[in-house]
């Protein structure tokens, strides 16, 4: 079994002008996805992130506030799941609920270094 991180990229919900009903619909889709993964027992963790970004960079450790990337590339949150293969992880990621908003999901294997 391997751990995979699914990283969610997309525009901040606050900028999309969703109605209460649309918010509700979206939430339901996420819950359905969540329930599905929960029932498979594969969720290792996951969190949502605030849209504000502060970046420290360079040898001078320059501090600056975002945005730094295009709005569609903003990281909104992540899940870590435990499955047998990358193929399985990609299959799970097919159900990511925000594709219709132009969002995307990146699947990255968590590195394990065996001594």
């Amino acid at each position: 079994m391997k751990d995979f991180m699914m990283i969610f990229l997309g525009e901040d919900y606050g900028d999309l002008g969703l109605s209460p009903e649309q918010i509700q619909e979206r939430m339901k889709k996420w819950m359905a996805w969540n329930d599905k993964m929960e029932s498979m027992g594969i969720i290792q963790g996951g969190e949502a992130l605030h849209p504000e970004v502060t970046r420290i960079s360079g040898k001078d450790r320059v501090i600056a506030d975002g945005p730094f990337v295009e709005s569609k590339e903003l990281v909104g949150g992540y899940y870590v799941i435990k499955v047998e293969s990358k193929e399985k992880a990609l299959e799970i990621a097919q159900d990511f609920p925000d594709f219709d908003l132009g969002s995307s999901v990146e699947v990255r294997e968590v590195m394990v270094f065996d001594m």
Partner: protein
Amino acid sequence: MKNQQLIDHLFRHQFGKMVSILTQIFGLNHLELVEDAVQDTFIAALKTWKFKIPEDPEAWLTKAAKNRAIDLFRQMNKSKIREVKFSQESIEKEINDYFLDHEIADSQLRMIFTACHPDLQAQEQIAFALKSIAGFSMREIAGALLTKEESVKKRLSRARQRIKTQNIQFKFPEKNEIKSRLARVNEVIYLIFNEGFHSGRKDVLIRKELCGEALRLCRLILEKETLRNDDSYALLALMCFHSSRLDSRVNENNEFVNLENQDRTKWYKPLIDLGQRAFEKSNHSKKLSTYQIEAAIAMEHVTASEFKHTNWETISSLYYALNKIHPNKFNLLNLSISLLMENKIEESKKVLAGIEEKDLEQRAYLYHSTWAEYHMKNQEFYKAAESLDKAISLVKNESERKYLIKKKNDLFLN
């Protein structure tokens, strides 16, 4: 699945509640600000709940709205947008008080009276009610009212403009005004209901939402003792009776099913019971109002065990009474149908002869299909076919057209 049911309608209903409470605190002048603030709260909920839903979603939203109200208050105080209503120290307690159950109900009622204010035009009233009480987005309102998003936008901004220029306050009407204001509230609620019930749209979901909102608003009025009135009870009854058969009006192929052919076992009994209880509470000792008569007619239909057991005699007399206080060609058309069902064929013809096709506008096809019924009763099948052809050429709704075509094809089979 359980979690999903937990939040069904939660957001739409909470939106209306919270906008009302915050408007009560900050005043109608800041309605837009208030709506944005509530929207922000919901977005925050979406972002965090999608990973883990709180134990008590409603309490979570309430807490978030309170915090948002305190933020707003501090913000406004700083920029002196509003005069100080309560001191910095007591904000939390004061704001908490606005979230008590009876205060929430009061705020929502104030919003209803605002939406139905006589200074707003009918179109603006409906759009405003759907937005600020029912939490519909502009696009959803446009979809519900079969109009463009752009015109919904205009109606809403005109409504807000009028609230400002007329200095409309967020309060209950004066005692001597209550009766006339309630009459308008009932009208607006009934209009919202009819948008849902009678529209030709296929999207059953939107229609149910509209009917459900109308029912909810009517119940809000009736829960307040000082606002209870016979017409609201009758209106609630009427809407319950109609709603009970909402699902059976369209079959699995998305085709229209008329009253005669509806599966009566599918009618939703609890709504019929609720309707009957509401109907009994509406005082019938004086002359019946239009709502009361319409409710009585609807009740005759939903309480008949089979179509052939419908009490057409009572229905005809109710339509006579209805047309007397509210003369209207649609009432006459319904009367003529009811008379036909009673086999009072010549009496029906007399009534039908008093109507012209153009009186019925987009429902003119009903005029011809009623003539077809009349000819069928007289065994004049060729004339019936002619009338059905006219009806078919005028009908807009696809499933109703199919129904009429089938009827014509069946004419010569018996």
